[in-house]
């Protein structure tokens, strides 16, 4: 077991890679009574085209299958696994993102039992045609619920605008139609390909003793047999650099219009410290341009182009990413125009210097330290970073290293006009007056 100390942060991380390939991380938290654990596979909604384990030819699977599989993991021949967690005083849950499927629990007691339940239920698939059919009604209601949420539609609307071929444009849960095609056989194929321990990370954080917990996990995994790990072949389509659709509007039941401006990054093949540096630099650049201390924000708030729903974000994964800026607004056109003007001007002449960088850097360091109070943040973010060959605890040292020129460079690669797009949601027009 490796032990890494982060002195400035006052944290110690324990790590071990088990013989079956599973990466295990344990982070004890002083003074906490709860333990939070996530068991995550590097498999999300974008992995819909791949070579199944032990086969030669790639296959395409129905939209929404990773999420469907996540739901079905909880049902076993002997019943629902939620019941087991509840008996052990644990609140369990799971989520599927573009790139990951995570199973998790939090509890203040019976931690070993709960870790055992977590490992065992995710490692013992049980799918039948009957249970798969039964789930379709539940997921159809989940999809319908999201269909009625304008902020979710806005988010997916802009991603659909930005991406022409990449599966990030497909809704994580699929559609009511696409999930009808899913069979138990599909689920086994996906499970066998992506749930091998070598494609997974276990992260345990909280009131936990690292030595005994690591030994417990070792034993649990040692009792099970798995095939030799194989490289997973995932196929992603060619994606042009420019945005697929420049502008689109959707009518929905909202009280006032909503708009998102999206910008697609140029560099989509980064990983490790290069990715960390780029992501943080671009986030700092966008913070300076669109954060609450920016001229843009001040002007937009005073002019009533934005309200409290205003948000901006930059996020990057391998193969896709986006900068998003938007708000509920009575003037969607003006707001989108002003956002793009701000980008154009900064591209023409970079307006920020060392003092600006120092300020947003301090803000970001503070945010990070605050986030380290949250076991959920640590486990989820650490896993996301690990899947991209980054280390969450490198964030502060990397922030301290970043220079003004890095911000400028990162911004330049997420700013070109051809990479921009606008998506709006507007209230339905009155039928008759």
């Amino acid at each position, binding site marked *: 077991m490796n032990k890494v100390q982060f002195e400035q942060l006052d944290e110690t991380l324990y790590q071990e890679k088990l013989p079956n390939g599973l990466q295990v991380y344990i982070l004890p938290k002083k003074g906490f009574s709860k333990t939070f654990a996530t068991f995550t596979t590097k498999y999300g909604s974008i992995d819909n085209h791949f070579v199944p384990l032990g086969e030669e030819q790639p296959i395409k699977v129905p939209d929404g299958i990773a999420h469907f599989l996540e739901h079905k993991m909880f049902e076993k021949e002997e019943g629902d696994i*939620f*019941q087991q967690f509840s008996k052990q005083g644990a609140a369990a849950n799971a989520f599927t993102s573009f790139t990951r499927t995570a199973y998790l629990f939090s509890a*203040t007691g019976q931690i070993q039992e709960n870790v055992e339940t977590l490992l065992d239920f995710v490692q013992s698939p049980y799918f039948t045609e009957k249970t798969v059919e039964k789930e379709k009604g539940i997921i159809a*209601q989940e999809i319908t*619920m999201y269909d009625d949420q304008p902020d979710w539609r806005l988010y997916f609307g802009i991603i659909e605008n930005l991406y022409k071929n990449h599966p990030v444009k497909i809704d994580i849960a699929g559609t009511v139609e696409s999930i009808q095609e899913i069979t138990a056989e599909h689920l086994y194929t996906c499970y066998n390909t992506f749930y091998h321990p070598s494609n997974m990370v276990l992260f345990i954080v909280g009131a936990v003793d690292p030595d005994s917990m690591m030994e417990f996990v070792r034993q649990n995994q040692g009792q099970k047999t798995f095939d030799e790990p194989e490289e997973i072949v995932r196929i992603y389509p060619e994606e042009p650099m420019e945005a697929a659709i420049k502008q689109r509007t959707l009518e929905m039941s909202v*009280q006032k219009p909503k708009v998102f401006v999206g910008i697609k990054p140029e560099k989509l093949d980064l990983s490790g410290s290069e990715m960390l540096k780029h992501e943080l630099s671009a986030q700092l650049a966008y913070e300076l341009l669109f954060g609450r201390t920016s001229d843009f924000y001040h002007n937009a708030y005073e002019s009533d182009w934005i309200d409290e729903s205003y948000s901006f974000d930059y996020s990057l994964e391998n193969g896709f990413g986006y900068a998003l800026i938007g708000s509920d607004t009575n003037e969607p056109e003006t707001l989108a125009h002003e956002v793009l003007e701000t980008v154009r001007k900064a591209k023409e002449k970079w307006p920020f210097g060392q003092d600006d960088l120092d*300020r947003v850097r301090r803000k970001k360091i503070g945010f990070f330290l*605050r986030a380290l109070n*949250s076991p959920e943040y640590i486990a989820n973010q650490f896993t996301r970073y690990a899947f991209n060959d980054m280390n969450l605890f490198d964030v502060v040292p990397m922030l301290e290293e970043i220079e003004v020129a890095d911000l400028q460079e990162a911004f330049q690669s997420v700013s070109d006009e051809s990479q921009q797009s606008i998506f709006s949601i507007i209230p339905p027009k009155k039928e008759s007056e």
Partner: protein
Amino acid sequence: MFHTRNIAKGVNVHVNETTQFKTINFSVKFKDKLTKEKASARSILANVLQHSNEVYPSHTALRMVLDDLYGTSLYIDSTKRGNEHIVSLNVETVNDQYLSEEGVLEKVMNLMYIVLFKPNLENGLFKESVFTREKNAVKQRIESIFDEKTRYAQQRMLDLALPDHPASIPANGTIEEVEKVTNQQLMDEYRAMLETNEVEIYAVGDIQSETIASFIEDYFHFKDREKAIDAPALELTKPKQPRVAEYEDMKQGKLHMTFFSPVTFKDEKFPVMQLMNGVLGGYAHSKLFVNIREKESMAYYVSSSYASQFGLLFILAGIDSKLEEKAVTLILEQVEEMKKGNITDVELDQTKALLTNQLKEALDSARGQIDIYDQYTELFDPFEPEQMINQWREVTKEQLAEVAQKLSLEMTYFLSGKEDEPNE
């Protein structure tokens, strides 16, 4: 957990000295009576104070200082509990120990003083442009509820079921009342907040209790104030219509049900009611989840929640709009099971375990400590989590059935797509 010091009549400082967190958290809570008028005015006030003051007149100037203080978070919000309206200044800052800089804490406390006591005034009133803008911001916040159909449906049901009752008054007030607020009224509310409201000040982190208390005494100058008269019992009046259906442009059907219960927060049966709600619909092992979602595949979410301050129990489900009748029948069957006491030992034990876990977990965040302490001090003074946990431990199935039998369904509200609307 917290050490309490009374610094003036009606003003308390509660400090938890702990090294559990990397940050220091403050919360200054001003408590007043909840009315539509007050909630509306005080929500504008919260925004005005948060966005502008004498030292940092623009929002940008204030945010720059906060960024410089390692992204210290500072916001003022409006919440409610029972018939109390609470304006809270919430601040979180990084403990100096993790920084290469000292003196951050002192600067942050000074900033709290400026935000509360040095408003941006013009001829004895709040600066007009700030007042107008923030009034508008609160109005837009209230309007935006419409976009979230679950929240909107819940608010519509409350408005219809219990009009003008504290249960239905939104913490941010109403659009009509926000529009009516004048700058002078806002100033009156501001004075009342500082001079007559009960004030509870919380601090959590690696700090000295004395430092905090003496800072507050030196700077905040809170004078004695009369304790607000104890809340009268909140009478629930039967809704005029037992069933209401409304229609908007949407796909899912939102089913919301209101039940009355005689058991409220201060009732000795309060812990029994919490468990009753948990077994019925609080968790993934609960009757509603197991039967409506897992067995019938009818819903993605279906749950119950207990508003203990008022003695209200809500059941919410997102369903296919054509299945309303079936869903109501199935839900009422589960309520009936509770009334009959058809509850297994496992169901009861699971619920006890999860309630206990939830309480302990909440105490693993500074904000959770403050919220729980502020709420439960009414029941136990000083509050210790074990007291609550011990009470739950002793509850029996028979007691659950007993409180379930006193539930009465008072309103069913259904919001669904316009295509479901009957043609007149």
